[in-house]
């Protein structure tokens, strides 16, 4: 039967093995550069200056699957509340990968900030 001392040593060895694994998997410099860029909100910096200081704005994005892009847009544009709906007078268009061929008919492009960031007006919501 395993002695207590042996078991304690197994505990110490198990700890050191996991510490070693942690070291091996520690991130390298610049490894997460693209993700950091996304989280920094730089894409939305110019748009933020063009929007009102507070209130609720609408949002239209790539697809239902890109919910992370919507969250990041809200994070960048706080303290504005970004509602995931185009039914607001001002609507943010967020298309980080490809710009859409056609926008819904009631949305009018006010300004293209580049990098897939658009400011749109919903004429029906006025």
């Amino acid at each position, binding site marked *: 039967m*395993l*002695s*207590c*001392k042996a*078991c*304690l040593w*197994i*505990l*110490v*060895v*198990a*700890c*050191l*093995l*996991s*510490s*070693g*694994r*942690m*070291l091996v*998997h*520690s*991130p*390298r*410099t610049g*490894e*997460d550069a693209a*993700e*950091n860029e996304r*989280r*920094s909100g730089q894409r939305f910096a110019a748009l933020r200056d063009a929007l009102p200081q*507070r209130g*609720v704005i609408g949002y239209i994005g790539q697809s239902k699957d890109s*919910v*992370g892009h919507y*969250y*990041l847009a*809200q*994070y960048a544009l*706080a*303290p*504005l*509340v*970004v*509602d995931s709906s185009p039914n607001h007078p001002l609507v943010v268009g967020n298309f980080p990968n490809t710009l859409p061929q056609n926008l819904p008919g009631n949305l009018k492009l006010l300004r293209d900030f580049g990098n897939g960031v658009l400011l749109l007006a919903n004429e029906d919501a006025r």
Partner: protein
Amino acid sequence: MAIALAGILCLLTGFVIVALGLHLLPTRSTLLLGISLSTGFGLAVFSIIYFLARWSGFLHLWAIDAAVCALLLIALTPLRKHRISAAPNVEAPDQATPRCLLIAFALASLAAVYCGITYAVARPYGSGWDSFAIWNLHARFLFRGGINWRDGFSPLIPWSHPDYPLLLPAAIAHFWTVMGRETSAVPAVIGLVFTFSTVGLLFSGLDILLGRTSALLGAMCLLSTPFFIDLGTWQYADVPLSFFILATLVLLHLHDRLAKGGVESRSTLALAGLAAGFAAWTKNEGILFLLTMLLTRMWLTSRQPSPGRRPISQMAPMLLAVAPIFALIAFFKRAVAPPGDLFSDLATMLHKLGDPSRYWAVLKWYGRELIRFGEWWLIPLPIVMLVLYFLLKRNVTREEKETVRASAAALVLTLAGYFFIYLITPRDIYWHLRFSLNRLFVQLWPSAIFVFFSALGGEPLTARRGDTEPQVQQPETASQNGTKSFSC
């Protein structure tokens, strides 16, 4: 400069609160315990100050911080002289610590510190979605929102969980406000502070109560849990919550050790209540822990009643400390936050509770995650610890056994509460389990390590260096031999 001053003020505020509540003989271990507790307590107080200042519109934070710290210092001054002379020594006896264990601990510490810092530097905006979708987003609304800060708790963005308590976001916003600008360094540093304060708290708590060998082994178990170190830098609230849960248990064990030696330390009990309240102010899961902890303490107090005192009056200091924080949370939930999204209508919840397949699904995930949540390599630590538990004879006195049982029961009941929430979750159960269960286990992991080593008792792990000066508290059954000692 502003950040350094604010940091010092925060630490000092926490330190004075801890000094008011805890009066032990000053040693290296009690100093480490004090510093580890001070960081979390200071940040918690800063978050409450910020929330109240934001709510009242009186945002002169420097003045408020300085006034709070000064008031606490004034309250401490008359007590200090008396307390230093009367401070009891509760420390475990001097132990012969194997050098190889010290080396292993040093290696694990270096690896954890290196990885923690590289994670924080490589991912200054945190990791995972909750950092930007919940915690830092709320901090931005508090900081950027001005008088419209309540917009951040709009039901239009339910995915940001506007009902989550504000300890972490308000502490971040506090530092941003005194600096006058936002920087990702603040949440990153707060994450690291909580991570390593938890390690310091575990080490010092075990060192004081059980001895150096248990402290080294226990802290090493935590330092060598890759997911704990990783999650600490994600800028989530799970590690801060784990800190406050552990702080509550360590303080309760200290109180019971003091009480066993005839020292009735109500202020230590109040400090434990404060820690449990801060846990509830960190995350909704903390509210569950607070309730289970109060329940188990009530049970413990009813089993060990003091002559002429009812259990409720024995718990009064703790309840009095919890009350204002509970009132703050209730105010936040009623006046600021929209309702949470975990509870649906009663009929739906009952239907889910009657579905056996949901119990089986959650049970399977619990079993699977138990051995893999820490992302250990080759040997999962909970398995080794379970084997150790059955191999080593428990060697604690009856009173301490009761304390350990109460702490273990609080953790098990909290886990049972999580189980219940998974059963009734309105979300897809597998999705919910997949993206949260490992973090819930991390919330309880430091406390589980603490309770595990407390259940073992210090003696089976070590040989004593010999009789030392008389101690106020000693386990009555402490063995003098070192038959099961841990040596190189």
